[in-house]
């Protein structure tokens, strides 16, 4: 029997086109693969430049892939019950080979994803890339940001330590400030009045199944719309030379993925995810903090609960969702900090700075009793 012919039949049945060497086979390689055909077969040289997008959307996606893989691994050891949750965290730290590494990678990738999704939103704004025909994809993107925050928040409770318990106490107390239905939403979220077994199970199912599935669906829609809306936003003028995505785009993506994996791995090796004492409802740490990305919110809540906890964030999300339908002038699309968009960019920059300011103050400048503390004094 001819061995090489046998092997070629098997490989040929999986990959229809051989290793692509010509321009024509490179294009068909992209089109004939389920994974690759999500991407265009040819891309503009401009969109390949790192400075065009800073790769933030891709990095967010790569982090989500890492989170899915490490999360699935962690699920094999984690038990979502108040009696066992904290013990399984200790097991991951001390009794599972590479358990700590896996948990660290999951933690840092999660924090990283909150950051990169937010930065991605900023990039899209400052390049005017939410304008027609991409309005709806911007709305999908804002939903993905909210989903990212929800995923991170539900994951925060799972370690069932003091940090988790009181962060979720504070976080769900903010939810209760919603007028009329706040207490009911909190009850529904916790599956009871207290943060107990029912709440842990609900957060677990949300974190491991419901929200990730929603994420996968919305990410698919997001990617699909990028293609359908004409690829990356670009100014109408100038030359847009196209090159085959194989290898130009794929190689860059591979490099970026390796860099992200390396950074997360490095962070996981160098820095351990925090784990405090087991959750104790009778002992409140001073101060009790929400997760860091909600500390800006907690800082606002410190000034006024309803205004800071409900009104301001709701208006912010609403404004983001409606933005592309209000600011619809087709000017400065696909250009960083376009002159025509100086006003819009300035307003957005102020909002971003405010978000960063409140988050930094809540994270570094607040000590016991939420009093002002200089970070170097602490």
């Amino acid at each position, binding site marked *: 029997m001819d061995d090489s012919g046998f092997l070629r039949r098997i490989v040929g049945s999986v990959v229809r086109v051989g290793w692509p060497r010509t321009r024509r086979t490179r294009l068909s390689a992209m089109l004939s693969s389920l994974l690759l055909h999500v991407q265009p077969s040819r891309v503009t040289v401009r969109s390949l430049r790192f400075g065009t997008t800073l790769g933030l959307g891709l990095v967010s996606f790569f982090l989500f892939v890492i989170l899915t893989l490490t999360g699935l691994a962690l699920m094999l050891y984690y038990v979502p019950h108040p009696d066992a949750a904290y013990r399984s965290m200790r097991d991951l730290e001390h009794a599972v080979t590479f358990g700590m590494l896996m948990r660290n990678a999951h933690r840092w990738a999660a924090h990283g994803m909150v950051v990169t999704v937010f930065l991605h939103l900023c990039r899209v704004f400052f390049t005017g890339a939410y304008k027609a025909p991409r309005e709806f994809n911007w709305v999908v993107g804002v939903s993905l940001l909210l989903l990212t925050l929800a995923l991170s928040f539900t994951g925060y409770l799972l370690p069932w330590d003091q940090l988790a318990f*009181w962060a979720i*106490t*504070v976080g*769900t*107390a*903010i939810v209760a400030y919603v007028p009329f239905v706040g207490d009911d939403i909190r*009850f*529904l979220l916790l*599956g*009871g*009045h*207290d943060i*107990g*077994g*029912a709440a842990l199970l609900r957060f677990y199912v949300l974190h491991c199944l419901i929200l990730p599935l929603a994420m996968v669906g919305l990410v698919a829609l997001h990617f699909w719309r990028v293609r359908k809306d004409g690829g990356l936003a670009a100014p109408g003028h100038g030359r847009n030379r196209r090159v085959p995505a194989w290898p130009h785009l794929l190689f860059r993506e591979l490099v970026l993925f390796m860099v992200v994996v390396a950074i997360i791995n490095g962070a996981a090796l160098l820095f351990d995810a925090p784990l405090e004492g087991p959750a104790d*409802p*009778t*002992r*409140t740490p*001073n*101060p*009790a903090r929400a997760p860091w990305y909600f500390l800006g919110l*907690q800082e606002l*809540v*410190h*000034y*006024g*609960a*309803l205004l800071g906890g409900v009104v301001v964030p709701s208006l912010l999300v609403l404004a983001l969702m409606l933005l592309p339908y209000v600011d619809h002038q087709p000017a400065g699309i696909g250009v960083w900090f376009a002159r025509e968009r100086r006003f819009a960019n300035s307003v957005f920059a102020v909002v971003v700075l405010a978000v960063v300011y409140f988050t930094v103050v809540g994270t570094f400048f607040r000590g*016991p*009793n*939420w*009093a002002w503390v200089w970070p170097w004094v602490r």
Partner: protein
Amino acid sequence: MSNWVTRRRTLLAVAAGSIVAAGAGLAAALGRFFIPDVLYESDRRFSVGRTDQFPKGTGTLLAERRLFVFHAEDGFYVVSAVCTHLGCNVVHEEKKGFACPCHGSLFGEDGVVVRGPAPSPLPRFAVTLSRQGELVVDSRRRVGVDYRLRV
């Protein structure tokens, strides 16, 4: 106008309307599924012990229950230890009132907000005497500042 309201459009609207109504009804019914009927948490009405465990003129923190039992000259009353701001446990300081360690809210001896971000006073719960002579707190029943259980 009469051109717009055709038989076809009317039938379509009725059909679409019934699908939406059926869907909404199903969603409302299934939505009820997510609200638990049985709660495996501590009872909202519970005994905190015999009256003689709380000497006259003292306030006792029951950490597990997250409340204070006070035995004043004119009777017993129960104050929640859960800050109304974001749910941290408050600390009682004699003559000063209740202080929340999380965001610096301060409540007077009567539970009313003196300063800080807390939006409302510390709730007070109804307390009754059981036949066995034990104080029974009902944390579902809020009562006013003047409420006292005289024994």
